[in-house]
């Protein structure tokens, strides 16, 4: 059996699960700098599924594709430390302000440039938006089928895949021919840890932009070891219709942003003492809130 060519779609996201007190600026806007940037959790689940296929089908290669600012190269390196073969960073101001549709357009044009593939695997959704739209939108743009909410790959060969899908009220086993898009659920297997050998191999991997500020002592490495060059594409490296990119290519617009205002109720403060709790329970019983 020939090895498969897999593209993993991943996103670097602000860690919205650990929002600290300094996450909001005084003017009520989000202070992105205060939020740590992480590998979107379900994209790591997606990477693990790709690595599982690579374990089982020798010759399989994994390319990690991400769109974002220069620092998003971090997650490509992180993917390589765990077993991805290479990565592409799609980075340009022209992509700024993209909603999910403009993002999926840019990603699908980058995938066309990458060329042949058997499976595209993405996390179900990113924690900064929770939309779960980009995977299916990419599949539609590429005119290929999709299997969403994948929890487990039951079997895969060069022509067909069988997966278990986690639906809100149950599970489904479904099969489909390749090529296709999979989106992977957080309930799927966790991503394996970094591999020490791969960490040593790829720790100096850099994009062209990063190399410009890299330590001169290492510059010779990038000629000697081509695998340390992370591909970086700007808008000029993909074929695109400018009207479908960035803010202009985004049908959805943010009309306004409101801060979360707590409409404070007059609450009664109660201690955890026996007397206070008993009094509360008696009150709730007599008001028929309980009982």
């Amino acid at each position, binding site marked *: 059996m020939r090895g498969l060519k897999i593209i993993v779609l991943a996103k670097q996201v602000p860690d919205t699960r650990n929002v600290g007190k300094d996450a909001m600026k005084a003017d009520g806007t989000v202070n992105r700098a205060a939020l740590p940037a992480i590998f979107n959790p379900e994209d790591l689940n997606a990477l693990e599924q790709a690595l599982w296929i690579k374990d089982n089908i020798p010759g399989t290669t994994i390319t990690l594709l991400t769109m974002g600012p220069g620092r998003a190269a971090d997650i490509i390196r992180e993917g390589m430390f765990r077993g991805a073969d290479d990565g592409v960073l799609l980075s340009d101001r022209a992509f700024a302000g993209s909603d999910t549709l403009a993002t999926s357009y840019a990603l699908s044009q980058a995938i066309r440039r990458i060329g042949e593939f058997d499976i595209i695997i993405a996390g179900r959704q990113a924690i900064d938006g929770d939309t779960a739209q980009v995977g299916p939108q990419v599949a539609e743009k590429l005119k290929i089928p999709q299997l969403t909410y994948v929890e487990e790959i039951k079997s895969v060969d060069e022509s067909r895949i069988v997966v278990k899908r986690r639906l809100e009220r149950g599970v489904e086993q479904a099969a489909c021919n390749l090529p296709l898009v999979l989106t992977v659920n957080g309930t799927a297997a966790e991503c394996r840890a970094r591999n020490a050998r791969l960490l040593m191999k790829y720790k100096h991997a850099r994009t062209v932009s990063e190399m410009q500020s890299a330590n001169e002592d290492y510059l010779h490495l990038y000629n000697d070891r081509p695998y340390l060059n992370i591909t970086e594409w700007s808008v000029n490296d993909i074929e695109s219709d400018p009207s479908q990119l960035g803010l202009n290519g985004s049908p*959805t617009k943010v009309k306004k942003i409101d801060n979360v205002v707590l409409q404070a109720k007059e609450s009664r403060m109660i201690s955890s003492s026996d007397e206070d709790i008993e009094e509360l329970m008696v009150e709730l019983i007599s008001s028929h809130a309980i009982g």
Partner: protein
Amino acid sequence: MNNLFVYCEIEDGAVAEVSLELLTKGRKLADSLKCKLEAVVLGSNLQGIEKQLFPYGVDVLHVADDPRLYPYQTLPHTSVVVKLFEAEKPQIALMGATSIGRDLGPRVSSALHSGLTADCTSLEIGDHEDKKAGVTYKDLLYQIRPAFGGNIIATIINPDCRPQMATVREGVMKKEILDENYKGEVKYLDVNQFVSPEEFVVEIIERHIEQSKVNLKGAPIIVAGGYGVGSRENFSLLYELAEVLGGEVGASRAAVDAGYAGHERQIGQTGITVRPKLYIACGISGQIQHRAGMEESAQIIAINTDPEAPINAIADYVITGDVAEVIPKMIRYYRKNTK
């Protein structure tokens, strides 16, 4: 033309709750837009399905009835909806934020190049003035949802592209029959005009759908736990209290992510929305996404070690203390005073 469409999901011959909730909301929006409410339903053996839908004020029902259209499959359902929308040009299209709606919605929006907002917690009609372009848009759909980790509430609009699409979770909108005798028109679609055989590429080998054993929406009392509960063991206290009070157990997303409770118990923007008589929030900090799913509860008790927790601001009773200490006391004094 340019009406409001709701994609209705079918499970075992019944229209999904979330679809009926969206029809209820859709009827109100259609009234303020002075347009018709249209529903589209795809599946197998759908004779008489209009009886379930017309009472919600559906003016036109599009039915695609074909054995191959049930259970749901991505490509054939996408084809039918995309082609129908191309012909009918809806101004608004609503879907449930379910494993079906979230699979179908993005495909349809990608094919039609229309904007889609996920997991809206409120939908309104309003105008928009684009000062830079000097254009005023009348009667747009305001798609309102918490964003960015719940630190902000965003109002999203689609000024130029149609349909304006949005998904909404089950329980967010209230289901209400408009008129038992409401009469609409049924239009049967010639499925072969919409779908080609090559689109049935996915083979569904096995399917286990269970009616959820957890009935959060119908529970008068909910005891919900957050990350602050601290452990699975402490979570068992919540089950005890719920059982004693005759309630159900819910959880915040952080508690579900931590493995304290299953997904079917998740309350909030990306879970289920509840409106019980009494909501007891245990170790829940109360981020906006959680509050979006429970703030219409008649009474709220917050139990938290943090006196500054945001949940306290919307609580009727704030108990400052440790869940593991407070809950056993609540059980004890409930029993003592109801004997």
